[in-house]
């Protein structure tokens, strides 16, 4: 019912370095079926003296949830929508809006259960299918979910909603990679399949654990650890989804861009963004909404939410500045698109770090993110050569990897970070050596990258076989708005 802890890494007796290698990833996918067989009981049932939610926490988490919704619609939709040509804007808005909606429904039906209940190290179980047990109508009883503080809970309904927004927006991020040429039905199929075999397992691997209250005594530590997700067990830090959301979506997008192929005219015709004002609005709403995403990931309205908040604020600002300065220096003009891209790059990079690093660490991460992701959408993009139309990989993939690794650096208390929980029984805090932690982070990145690449490959293949990935050439030329959706965005 829970997630990896911001402070949490080297907890009681946990051995570091359970890492699996990339080659075993295909084998792991097979584990997906396990929980369907093994009947899983309700993970929430263990809590002994029944703490009650604090209303301040509830208020904050409700707000955080709606902020993440605002990130998707209209935030992400506009950020992407402004970047395409005017003949394709509605197709982008639709892919985001309908994809998001569809996944929210699926999240309630089965997604939540497979991500956040006890199962195996790769996937959760079936105990919360159809949200069974989250709210009991007959007794009018509301279940609670654990947070990262002992004795602090929130209504599980809130946790379901909050996590649902993460799942749904992550799949929407991929849309940017295949914009302007993808068949609408294929886009929806890809999102559903990838959500199921890509997102849900990774979310479970990174975030599922038994919660702090489960660590009642030293002798239960091993048993509790064993029930957590694979990457969580390794001790990887991911406060708000650097791996689960950004690397995950970034890599899937890149695979998609390659499999779908380049847009007609790519590299020859000018394809300037049709409305950068929309992109700026989108980037701004992403920034605003991301406070829910990041500070909300603390799951309560306390000091760590505040830390994540200020870090999200300053890292983003720093990345906006550094991208603009690099562009100014190398390309003579600091562009609006650059500033907006920089802000998003900063947001991405600070995501895994936000509650895991100190206040100056955040600014450094932001500054680096602006520079690195600038290279991601220029130099690296040319190296890769794929038509990742809206730079999902260059910004989200690369920024996510950068953030994940730097989290391992600046988490260290000697570098101003808050360290991590070394023993969940006593909730005591310490720091891993920087290189140790960076290696753990790198392992998490590798597993995520491998898993999502395979999942994305399967998802796109399924869509290709079922309906075909691309629209006909004529429709691509005319634009997807009129041909796929029967509408134009703009009229007199």
């Amino acid at each position, binding site marked *: 019912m829970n997630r990896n802890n911001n402070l949490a890494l080297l907890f009681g007796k946990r051995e570091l370095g359970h890492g699996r290698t990339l080659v075993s990833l295909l084998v792991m996918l097979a584990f997906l079926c396990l929980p369907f067989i093994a009947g899983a009981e309700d993970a929430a049932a263990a809590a002994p003296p029944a703490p009650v939610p604090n209303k301040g926490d509830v208020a904050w988490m409700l707000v955080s949830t709606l902020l993440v919704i605002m990130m998707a619609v209209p935030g992400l939709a506009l950020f992407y929508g402004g970047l395409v040509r005017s003949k394709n804007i509605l197709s982008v808005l639709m892919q985001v809006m309908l994809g998001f909606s569809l996944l929210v429904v699926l999240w309630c039906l089965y997604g939540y259960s497979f991500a956040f209940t006890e199962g195996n190290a790769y996937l959760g179980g079936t105990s919360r299918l159809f949200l069974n047990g989250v709210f009991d109508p007959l007794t009018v009883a509301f279940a609670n979910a654990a947070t990262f503080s002992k004795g602090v809970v929130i209504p599980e309904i809130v946790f379901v909603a909050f996590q649902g927004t993460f799942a749904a927006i992550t799949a929407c991020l991929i849309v940017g990679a295949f914009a302007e040429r993808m068949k609408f039905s294929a886009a929806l199929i890809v999102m559903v399949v990838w959500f199921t075999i890509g997102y849900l397992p990774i979310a479970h691997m990174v975030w599922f654990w038994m919660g702090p209250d489960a660590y009642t005594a030293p002798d239960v530590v091993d048993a509790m650890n064993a029930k957590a997700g694979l990457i969580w067990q390794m001790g990887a830090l991911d406060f708000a989804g650097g791996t689960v959301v950004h690397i995950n979506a970034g890599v899937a997008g890149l695979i998609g861009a390659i499999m779908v192929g380049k847009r007609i005219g790519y590299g020859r015709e000018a394809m300037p963004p049709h409305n950068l004002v929309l992109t700026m609005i989108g980037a701004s709403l992403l920034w605003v909404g991301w406070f829910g995403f990041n500070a909300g990931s603390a799951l309560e309205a306390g000091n760590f939410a505040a830390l994540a908040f200020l870090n999200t604020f300053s890292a983003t600002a720093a990345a906006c500045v550094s991208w603009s300065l690099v562009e100014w220096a190398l390309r003579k*003009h600091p562009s609006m698109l650059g500033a907006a891209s920089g802000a998003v790059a900063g947001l991405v990079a600070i995501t895994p770090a936000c509650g895991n690093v100190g206040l100056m660490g955040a600014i450094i991460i932001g500054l680096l993110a602006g520079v690195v992701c600038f290279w991601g959408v220029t130099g690296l993009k040319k190296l890769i050569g794929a038509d990742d139309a809206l730079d999902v990989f260059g910004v989200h993939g690369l920024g996510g990897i950068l953030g994940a690794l730097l989290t391992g650096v600046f988490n260290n208390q000697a570098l101003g970070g808050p360290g991590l929980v070394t023993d969940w029984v006593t909730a005591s805090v310490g720091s891993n050596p920087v290189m140790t932690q960076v290696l753990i982070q790198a392992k998490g990145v590798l597993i995520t990258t491998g898993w999502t690449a395979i999942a994305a490959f399967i998802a796109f293949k399924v869509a290709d076989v079922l309906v075909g990935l691309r629209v006909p050439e004529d429709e691509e030329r005319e634009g997807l708005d009129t041909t796929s959706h029967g509408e134009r965005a703009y009229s007199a």
Partner: protein
Amino acid sequence: MKLITAVIKPFKLDEVRLALADVGVQGLTVTEVKGFGRQRGHTELYRGAEYQVDFLPKVKLEIALDDAQVSRAIDAICKVARTGKIGDGKLFVTDLSQAIRIRTGESGPDAL
């Protein structure tokens, strides 16, 4: 009757219109166009991609005139629209075989 088609820089539109009014022109039709010529456009950068934008925003005026007015109108336009910098634009004259005012059905020079 003649039809003068003038392509000019957008910010000169108001001045040209006033100058034409001074020489007795009572009506004209304006279109926003993009011009390509000796004047170079600029480079635009969108993330990785760099575009040479060769087309510059211009304004096209179409003015139907009685033959007698033509030379004065041409002079007025040329004088006012000139900045002396490249890209000031062009002026073309064609013959008009007929002109009609839709409201009244008047035709020929009366219709202008």
